[in-house]
């Protein structure tokens, strides 16, 4: 059965989006991208340093994945909107991973600025994928203004703390009809599987792969975890029970 992810009107067979930041080298990054099977990778725009840009361009060309520019580091709606427009011009895409953070210690989203930026970008024709708090109400507001997905955090960016509030992630899944992509906080493969088991449509992982001791191997682990978690979600887990329920019948037990 076809189980493709439909995101922003496009169809993907992989449910793993990969962030590119934090890799020890471009070679390691490229191997991780390939191993992950991802079809979407995030990139950022920064002031030109002629020495560093050429090699990344080549990696992006070779991998032939969809590029999802982000607005990382932006702290106001105005800044994020301008950055998204610059990214649209640079990458020739109207897709944007919208990040509007509240401070640089927690990197947590500022929901007020975020919703405002999302609304302005949707009006301007962008396909907006907002990085948001694990708050169902904010997620609903983002979906209401026309975002193509919502991307709640599991825990702070780069923390590797996993999904701190699985209940809220499940509530977000109930609260919106657009795809839910768990973004940030994943530390290892079981976190990615849990996200998918909670009903997320995809996960976006950067640090857990790029900063692993072996990014390529971790990318493989994440690919498998996302597939396993998704299959488990579709298969339907058994209910949790307080007491045991025998899986072998008692009837016919011999008298010994």
């Amino acid at each position, binding site marked *: 059965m076809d189980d493709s992810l439909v995101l922003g009107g496009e169809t993907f067979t992989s449910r793993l989006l990969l962030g590119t930041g934090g890799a020890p080298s471009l070679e390691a990054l490229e191997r991780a991208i390939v191993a992950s099977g991802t079809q979407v990778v*995030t990139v950022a*725009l920064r002031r030109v340093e002629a020495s560093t840009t050429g090699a990344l361009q080549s990696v*992006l060309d070779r991998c032939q994945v969809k590029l999802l520019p982000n607005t990382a580091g932006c702290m106001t709606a105005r800044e994020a909107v301008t950055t998204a427009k610059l990214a649209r*011009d640079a990458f020739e895409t109207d897709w944007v991973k919208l990040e509007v953070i509240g401070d640089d210690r927690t990197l947590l989203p500022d929901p007020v600025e975020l919703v405002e930026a999302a609304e302005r970008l949707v009006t301007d024709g962008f396909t907006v994928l907002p990085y948001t708090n694990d708050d169902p109400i904010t997620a609903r507001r983002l979906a209401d203004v026309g975002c193509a997905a919502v991307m709640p955090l599991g825990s702070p960016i780069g923390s590797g703390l996993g999904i701190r509030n699985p209940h809220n992630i499940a509530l977000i899944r109930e609260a919106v009809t657009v795809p839910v992509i768990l973004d940030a906080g994943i530390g290892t493969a079981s976190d990615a599987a849990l996200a998918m088991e909670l009903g997320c449509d995809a996960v976006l992982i950067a640090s857990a792969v790029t900063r692993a001791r072996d990014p390529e191997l971790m990318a493989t682990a994440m690919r498998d975890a996302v597939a396993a978690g998704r299959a488990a979600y579709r298969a339907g887990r058994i209910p949790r029970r307080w007491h045991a329920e025998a899986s072998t019948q008692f009837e016919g037990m011999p008298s010994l």
Partner: protein
Amino acid sequence: MKITVNGSATEVAAGTSVGDLVRQRVDDRRRVAVARNGEVVPRAEWDSTPLEEADTVEVLAPVAGG
């Protein structure tokens, strides 16, 4: 004339266009974006957009991130 490029004071010849500036700064012009005084200068308008005294320009290129 004096302009600011990526946060640094810079002297450029009168009549320099945004396109000229990008050519001076970047080998690979693909996936590059320019903001002039806080507004996007679309790629198609780089060559027809002259720089003016005291302009603040950002020339941006892809980096790994996110």
